[in-house]
């Protein structure tokens, strides 16, 4: 006796395949569009290169998994960065719990030490290092805000990702701008 799959089964299978294909396509689109930004984000969350690689892979896996429930109510970029920051925060909490007390908010951040290099050619690398040092000292929420600000996200987009009110975001961005202006004014004026 030959058993043939019934029509509803075939329909269900093709529907599942369609959903899976759509997810794969979205993932590939997201990886192509935001891959570089995700690498930069991973660098801000994890200093160790091999663990950073693990984090980046976790981020990609989390994005792929989450895209099954992506319904288009927010932009793909907002969705991708929500998942990415969520995964990175998880990674940070899992690996750096002992140092949580050393982290600061944007408001209580102590002055960054001036580590200006004498070499003019090292200015850019030094600036980046100072920026990374600043980011590493921030608590997750403020870290998310500053990273997205540095990636040219609008205040509204940052609010969508981190889930804070526009007024809260405006206050934080004001503080970020002030910090960066101080840091880079010093740098440019040296």
């Amino acid at each position, binding site marked *: 006796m030959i058993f043939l799959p019934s029509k509803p089964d075939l329909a269900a299978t093709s529907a599942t395949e369609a959903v899976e294909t759509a997810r794969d396509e979205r993932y590939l689109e997201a990886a192509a569009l935001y891959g570089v930004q995700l690498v930069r984000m991973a660098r801000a969350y994890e200093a160790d290169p091999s663990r950073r690689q693990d984090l980046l892979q976790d981020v990609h896996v989390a994005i792929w998994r989450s895209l099954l429930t992506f319904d288009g109510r927010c932009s793909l970029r907002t969705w991708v960065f929500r998942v990415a920051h969520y995964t990175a*925060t998880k990674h940070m909490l899992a690996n750096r719990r002992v140092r949580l007390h050393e982290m600061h908010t944007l408001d209580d951040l102590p002055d960054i030490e001036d580590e200006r290099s004498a070499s003019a050619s090292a200015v850019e690398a030094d600036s980046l290092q100072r920026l990374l040092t600043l980011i590493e000292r921030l608590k997750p929420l403020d870290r998310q805000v500053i990273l997205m600000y540095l990636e040219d996200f609008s205040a509204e987009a940052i609010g969508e990702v981190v889930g804070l009110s526009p007024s809260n975001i405006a206050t934080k961005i004001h503080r970020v701008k002030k910090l960066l202006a101080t840091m880079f004014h010093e740098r440019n004026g040296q």
Partner: protein
Amino acid sequence: MNGNTVWQSQTLEVPRISLQYVRRQAERLNSDIRRELRFGIFGTVLSALGCGFLVLGPAPGWSIVGVPAPIVLVVQLTALLSFLACGYLTIQIQRRGKLQLAAEHEQVMQSLQAYRTALERRRDHYASAWRWSFWPVLPGMIIILGGDLLFDERPHKWLRLSLAALVCALALLVGGWVSFRKSAGFQREIDALKTLDQNGN
């Protein structure tokens, strides 16, 4: 030069992560749930074999070791109850694991809030583990201890009974302690999270 320029102009190697790799890694996630389920299935199969041997085994086997008939009944009943308890626990592990996975798909709302929700769900899972895993094993324990108390006529009955009761109590305590420790670990992480984002909301 400003912060945005410095940040975006950093030279970084973008590793190639293939779709196949991502799919394979995603399958490996939630391995803890699958491991618990494997333990449950293994326990159920083992207890089924033990139960089959003790309940359906040939009667002469019992006569060789000289076990009185009531004790045989107690042992068989205990084996049967242990099998049922293992089966029940395995079903519970599978059901609760499925619920957790389903909920994780829905939780991508706000990053920190989502993480907190996931932690709370896992904490509650382990905090309530004793409620759904304790009572299924209780009947078996009562039967074996009660049966021993009533029908065992061999010497040093109380010593053996006390030891058996101690082993049962220890097993329950260790199970409860492991669940409590896991639950407390998740609670500590939730507390750490509260201190982390207290400025944001």
